[in-house]
């Protein structure tokens, strides 16, 4: 860094991805847009990502936060795999999730390390506020 710019608040970088096989990414896009409007830099990785691809992208992009969207029902297989890969890489990037996730599964996923889970009807404001505090606490 040859230019020592004045220190200012740096933007939160967040990866938004959809693991596994589902074709509906409207929700992920709406959340990406809301985080953008909250001043974050959102790396949109899109549909049909494997856990390996998601973790790889998170590390290359050096994100502060990972947001996963899932509607397929495969969350109990895919989310723990992503958490395990992150652990394997010795990183504690916080992960939040949204989609169709039954309460009982959500409890278990929270226990496994997913930091926040948003179901249908969650306000964008709540998602933005939670995302911001997760990223700031991790920093």
């Amino acid at each position, binding site marked *: 860094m040859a230019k020592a710019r004045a220190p200012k608040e740096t*933007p939160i970088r967040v990866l938004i991805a959809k693991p596994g096989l589902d074709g509906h990414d409207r929700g992920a896009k709406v959340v990406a847009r809301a985080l953008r409007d909250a*001043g974050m*830099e959102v790396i949109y990785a899109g549909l049909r990502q494997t856990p390996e691809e998601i973790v790889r992208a998170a590390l290359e992009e*050096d994100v502060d936060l990972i947001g996963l969207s899932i509607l397929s029902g495969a969350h109990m297989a895919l989310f723990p795999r992503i958490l395990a890969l992150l652990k394997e*890489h010795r990183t504690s990037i916080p992960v939040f999730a949204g989609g169709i996730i039954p309460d009982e599964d959500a409890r278990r996923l929270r226990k496994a390390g997913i930091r926040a889970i948003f179901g249908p009807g969650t306000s964008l404001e709540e998602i933005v506020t939670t995302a911001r505090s997760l990223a700031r606490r991790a920093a």
Partner: protein
Amino acid sequence: MKGASRLPAAARAIVAGDRRALARTITAVENGDPSADPIVRSLYARSGRAPVVGLTGPLGVGKSSLVNALVGRLRSLGLTVGIIGVDPSSPFTGGSVLGDRIRLERRADDTGVFFRSMASRGAAGGVAEATREVSRLLDAAGFDVILVETVGSGQVDVAIRDIASTSIVVVVPHLGDEVQTLKAGLFEIADIFCVNKVDLPGADIAKRDLAELVLLGGRADGWAPPIVGTSTLNAQGIEELWNDVLAHEKFLDESGERVRGERKRLAGEVVGLARDRVGRELNRRLERDPSLRRLLDDVLARRIDPRTAADQLATGGRRTRGR
């Protein structure tokens, strides 16, 4: 590697292929974090080896898909690739959605590809302020080829020229009539013209208009930009596109243009960095020196004019008064 032991630890890690160290240093460079300073300084000597290929052009012409197709081609040749994809930051919130990654197809375990998305963070010209230094980091990290995808650019987004050794301007059929090709700006910086989505009707007209532009000549270095038709649906023209990049890189070496161009660009960079530094120093003086603060009061009260005040600030006092 020679001299590697004298590098800072993070720089050593980057050279040794540690992608996490690379990713973190890129963040530090983007954020203007002083921790990146010794790393950037020490790795400069290891850059300047890989061709830096810029892809620019209006939004929606298929730059990200072309990057993906080029990555496929380069990997099949056994070459490693570092990619920077730049997308715009909001002028209102500073936020951005970085979507260039979405087209990238590669095996998740392929360490020969590194993709980094970058927000423009208010910089004009189609790239971010940090893009040049980050492309050097990728170079020092050992990638054989660096690809830089600019913001979907308008007619004057030509800053990629200061970073890339070969600039590809990407267009599609029906972007406009031949008068568009006469305009100054984007079309002037092309080392290669790529007509993407060449399977669409109108591609021949687009190629013909560009051919006429190239025929008119006028480039001081004597290079005539080739025109390549590509389609990423079936990887049509991708091999030709890469061969044209190699031909241009060879031309740069054989004509001496690489050295001439680099010298000019580095002069611009060094002067720019020095100007920033002097600017910061002058701001500091204005804040700290009470007599200089009074200078502003004088300008405000119309007792002296801004140009005279600038003379005095630059010379560090009020000695030039009444010159």
